């Protein structure tokens, strides 16, 4: 039973560029949430997708957008990268009927130079 997978593992970009991060949920899960974790801090909720729509959003600017595909996988897009966007980006999946337990992927480390 495959767990949550994320790609790529690491990414280096320069200011102003755009980036796309990918997440495949745990088998059987239909809901994907994205979190940003700055170094030494707790994760911050970005947004959540299910039924291919953004259902809830945290306090992040419109530069952060996402998508969910029919197979429940998801992408996180960040435009006009800033130095402050450097962080670990975590994806978590869950099953709507059992939303209380989220399973996290290993994360993508994004460095913006």
């Amino acid at each position, binding site marked *: 039973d495959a767990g949550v997978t994320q790609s790529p593992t690491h990414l280096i970009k320069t200011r102003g560029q755009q980036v796309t991060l990918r997440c495949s949920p745990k088998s059987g899960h239909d*809901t994907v*949430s994205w*979190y940003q974790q700055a170094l*030494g*801090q*707790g*994760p*911050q*909720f970005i947004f*959540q997708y*299910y039924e291919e729509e953004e*259902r*809830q959003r*945290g306090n992040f600017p419109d530069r952060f957008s996402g998508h969910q595909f029919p197979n429940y996988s998801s992408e996180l897009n960040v435009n006009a990268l800033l130095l402050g966007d450097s962080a*670990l980006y*975590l994806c*978590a999946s*869950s099953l*709507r009927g059992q*939303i*209380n*337990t*989220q*399973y*996290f*992927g*290993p*994360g993508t*480390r994004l460095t913006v130079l």
Partner: protein
Amino acid sequence: AQTVTQSQPEMSVQEAETVTLSCTYDTSESDYYLFWYKQPPSRQMILVIRQEAYKQQNATENRFSVNFQKAAKSFSLKISDSQLGDAAMYFCAYRRGGGTSYGKLTFGQGTILTVHP
């Protein structure tokens, strides 16, 4: 807005000893869930234990147990018989029950646990 506070940036324990990590939270909701997650250097966030607010009984998972004090809004994690593999960053997290808050976890700042052999 809900907030979660972990007042211990770092804790240490000797192998085989017991350690308690503290967490307090602030909410006006009556229906919610609390979690402890472990994040080792590999970065993978692993669920350690979960507590439903409506349950009076404290959750237990093998060597891990919680002390849930709803009135005091306190949710501490006790690790018994500490092992070297317990060394990690531990996060306390809150999730509102039901409604439209599916899946939004609010995390504390984390506590780094060091286990000494």
